[in-house]
């Protein structure tokens, strides 16, 4: 119970490596946005961790980079 409460109190930030993956594949934010059918702003906010993508969106991104979602998105607790 205590553990449960603690986990609720923490702010969980989703970190991601999209920027790095983009650099590896040599594509821009706009390219990626086009590829998965969202706006460039969406990609921008995801990259800066200000937007938490839905499961489907995260899976689409992961498929573009050919990596599991876990490898791209990482949960991080910010106490």
């Amino acid at each position, binding site marked *: 119970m205590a553990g449960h409460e603690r986990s609720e109190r923490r702010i969980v930030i989703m970190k991601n*490596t999209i920027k790095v993956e983009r*650099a590896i594949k*040599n594509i821009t934010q706009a390219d990626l946005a086009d590829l998965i059918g*969202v*706006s460039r*702003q969406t990609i921008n*906010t995801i990259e800066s961790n200000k937007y938490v993508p839905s499961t*489907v969106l995260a899976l689409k991104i992961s498929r573009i980079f050919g990596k599991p979602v876990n*490898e791209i998105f990482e949960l991080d607790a*910010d106490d």
Partner: protein
Amino acid sequence: MKRIVTTLSLLLILQLVQAQDAQTIAQKLVDKVRSCKTISHSSSQKWGNIGDANDFTPFSGSCLFKMVPLDSNIRAYYSLKANDINDIYNGKTITRVNAADSTINVTDLQKYPGERSNITSKMLYTQSILDIYNMLSPIKGKRDYKMRMIADTTINNMPCNRLRLTYTDTLINKQRTQYYKEISINVQTHLPAHVKSFSQSEYGIQIIESNLSGFKINDTAINQILTTDVNEVPGYRKIEYSPTLKRENAIDLKKGQKAPEWKLPVVQGDSLSLSQLKGKVVVLEFSGVYCGYCLVAVKEMNKLQDSVDSSKVRLVSVYSDEVKDKLKKYVERYGMKFTVVYNEKDQKNKKILRDYGVSGIPHFFVIDQEGNIAWHSVGFQTNIGEVLIREIKKLLK
């Protein structure tokens, strides 16, 4: 007692030897790649067991890459070149696409009408050797992993060493395995032959397997295209397909468009529908309890609630997949002064999310007195409070 100590130390030594072996094997691969001027290879990838997203079925693709590691101190630079002709396997049929410098809509796959997924000749659905190189090289990313050697194996009748890289996540004291990767490295060539990634998370289980083959090292014919044999894929059928350039946005809601109607239970009361709010400016925010910036947005929404005339403006926050009691505690804890509506947990019909094209949180909408969409914005921004006030004022004029 002595025997136990001996056994234990033997085990320890064995483990150390094993660890060293894994390092040596990894180092050999890194050295090999580093010494190459160019490497090209073809690879095919297979996805399986991917979460609950129904539009993702196992598939494989093939392509050719080139890599030119330039400086051992920096991330390897590489250039990619896809086959001009790509065969894309969607689980049932293979689509042949011409990938030469164009964007290709793979959605031809009429079986998945909901999906819009394109590839360009630059985009490759493969596990690149570069990834493996970066992973094994000492210049690795900030993520830590444990590497060990597991049972040897054979890939295409070639003996291989198998390394397992285990990554732990940062939430529970780096204790929980986030995912692991198994890389099979050819004993003779020191090049990877097979990679398997396995991960389990809130997104479900994902398994990605890649076969790497057809390596050409220091080849001069840069543009030479390797052909990949796809005949072995069951149900193989070639389809002639000409690509078309397509740019679409998932969110099709536009300014002035009628805001989709919704009716949802309210945490602080019974229920609320959009039509009930006619005549008022509505700020609709899509949010979640697990999202850090949404919590920052709560503070902004509270500030906003204090500064607007509540007879003219209504602030509503939508939480999905929630249990009322739990959400109520959350609402009380953070002193939310605005209306909080929610979608019941496990309720399959998340109509409001679909209707508004919400693909993540937070997402803000401003709806005018007539029930039309006046403005919307994806994600958190530091000046969201000011922006919302500006948009509200425009409508109250």
